[in-house]
């Protein structure tokens, strides 16, 4: 367990047994798409084109890709402030993300939400919001709806380690456990809340202890291992669908950028800079690429082709977003209330 928190470990190629080449390529494609999309955002935050606050999750791509690989469109997924990956992993909708971040009408929230309010109901992404922990009770309520629907739907709440310091988190776990609600709690433990390391915020860095106290089944895994996450989530989600019981998954990871914006160490200075160098070795994309090359599933050339094709998609999508129109002025008032 302690090794999960030590970046010296878990840096080797991933185990890929049990996965077909198509699925593995899909994982790789999805992670690279997210990585490169966020790098595109970083570039445009730095050059001043993007004004809206963006919380980048570079380094954490495996989590959303692994979790999303086992979900159905009828499941209900909720994100938080760092949710570009959660949004992209379900539908690869680059245009929806880029346009939204630029406040354009073609954005996922019609330009009314920005980076922190993404939605794609066609694939069950029901919304992300930046108030820390706020979507945990909301996802728990989606699970209550799923339970009443009796169709085997699952609700998913993504949140970070900081959110577990909020009361809403503990209240929600208690509610879900007591009322037997089909919800998958995904804690992306990247060890930082904004600038502050978890050791300065909690007496233990292992978040799954809270699930144990609420009698919710849980596991703590390497958050940079997409195959393990996918495999484990499949079992967890099957169990949730069959039993209507919640499940708690803690995924240990590390964010390569600062809390908000494009810089790598903007919040926390030298110590983080040193740590970051070591944590970069646990790169979820490189570890999968290594496994794919060593197992002769893909060649370096075909991986290069994937990178090039995604670069092209991002370039084209960004251009469309830049060319997009802003929302009509009447949206400001017309969207406040429904008509009844």
């Amino acid at each position, binding site marked *: 367990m302690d090794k999960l928190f030590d970046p010296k470990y878990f840096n080797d190629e991933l185990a890929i047994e049990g996965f077909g080449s198509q699925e593995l390529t899909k994982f790789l494609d999805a992670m690279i798409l997210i990585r490169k999309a966020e790098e595109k955002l970083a570039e445009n935050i730095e050059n001043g084109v993007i004004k809206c606050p963006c919380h980048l999750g570079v380094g954490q791509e495996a989590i959303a890709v692994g979790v999303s690989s086992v979900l159905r469109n009828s499941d*209900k997924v*909720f994100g938080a402030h760092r949710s570009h990956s959660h949004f992209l992993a379900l539908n690869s909708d680059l245009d929806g993300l880029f346009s939204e971040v630029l406040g354009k009408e073609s*954005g*996922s*929230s*019609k*330009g*009314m*939400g920005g980076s922190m*309010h993404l*939605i794609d*109901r066609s694939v069950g992404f*029901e*919304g992300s*919001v930046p*108030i820390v922990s*706020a979507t*945990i*009770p*909301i*996802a*728990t*309520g*989606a*699970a*209550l*709806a*799923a339970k*009443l629907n009796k169709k085997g739907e699952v*609700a998913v709440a993504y949140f970070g380690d900081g959110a577990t310091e909020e*009361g*809403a988190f503990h*209240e*929600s776990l*208690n*509610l879900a456990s*007591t*009322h037997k609600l089909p919800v998958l709690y995904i804690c992306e433990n990247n060890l930082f809340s904004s600038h502050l390391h978890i050791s300065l915020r909690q007496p233990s860095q292992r978040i799954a202890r809270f699930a144990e106290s609420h009698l919710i089944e849980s596991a703590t895994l390497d958050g940079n291992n997409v195959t393990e996450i996918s495999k484990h989530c499949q079992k967890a989600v099957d169990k949730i669908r069959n039993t209507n019981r919640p499940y708690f998954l803690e995924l240990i990871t590390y964010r390569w950028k600062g809390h908000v914006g494009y810089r790598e160490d903007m919040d926390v200075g030298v110590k983080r800079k040193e740590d970051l160098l070591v944590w970069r070795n646990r790169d979820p994309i490189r570890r999968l690429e290594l496994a794919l090359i060593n197992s002769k599933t893909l060649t370096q050339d075909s991986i290069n082709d994937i990178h090039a094709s995604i670069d092209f998609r991002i370039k084209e999508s960004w251009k469309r977003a830049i060319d997009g129109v802003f*929302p009509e002025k009447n*949206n400001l008032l017309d*969207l*406040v*209330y*429904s*008509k*009844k």
Partner: protein
Amino acid sequence: MKREISYAEGILEAFNYLLTNHQNVFVIGQGLWSPWYVGASMKDLDVKYGKERVIDSPVSELAVTGAAVGASICGYRPVVVHPRMDFMVLAIDQIVNQAAKWRHMFGGKSIAPVTIRGIINRGGEQGAQHSQALHSWFAHVPGLRVVMPATADDARDLLVASVLSDDPVMFIDDRWCYEHKSQVVDIEPVRLDSVEPRVLKEGNDVTILGIGYSSLLCLEASTNLEKDGISAEVIDLRILNPIKVKNILKSVEKTKRFVVVDGGWTNCGMAGELIARVMENISISDLSASPKRVTLTDAPAPTSSNLEEDYYTKSVDIEQVVKTMF
């Protein structure tokens, strides 16, 4: 056929109507399986509709309100009940940051049609944290419809309208109204956005506007003022947000005197807002007297009975203020 019901019975009828006719309605909150928590207004609902649709909850205002918001996003019409508004403050993130903004910030692609029932329960030496009327706070928030019935028919019909509205609604009822009686016919659902302030009693000399229980005090005061030869028009606001002033303006243009009576505090309260709305739209020279407000003094509710006696507005306080305008 007309029949008489009380305010508490009106709320109960609304719940029965909603739970019978709308399978996506459920109710959640503290005390829903207890016979005494919410007066007679929810009697035996759990027995009739089952504990799966009438859910008594852990002591978690925030998560329970959030869960209702989440279920509403997923197609349900939950009513989350806060038996005392003071405790509802613990849930404010879900009400103000989440439900109220959900539609707008997602470009209209999703809605959160939850009804949050906050009950005002005051008097009886309950003190500072068991007596608050915080409706003005919530009326400040765009996206949140705020409803405050004064009469038994409105308690019933506006609760039905709130739950059937596609927007999040804060429905605030007042225990002091529970015995008030109205004549009603069978429920005919109305659209919440069509509801206007209502003239409860016509008059010519002064417009007295009430909010929730205060409207009943205004009616009482108007009866007494008649003895002094003052004909008061009493209007019940009903909907605090979004606010509609057309009927109020029409009345003030007629009576040329305007008093607002509100059971909330003075500073930044509904009474000040309503006076401002009217004054912005009327020529001062058309008024026979400066507008007045009758509100709570800016102090927490006391416990001691002799302080409580002064703290809450009585109809005689309204009468006195009105008389100064002639």
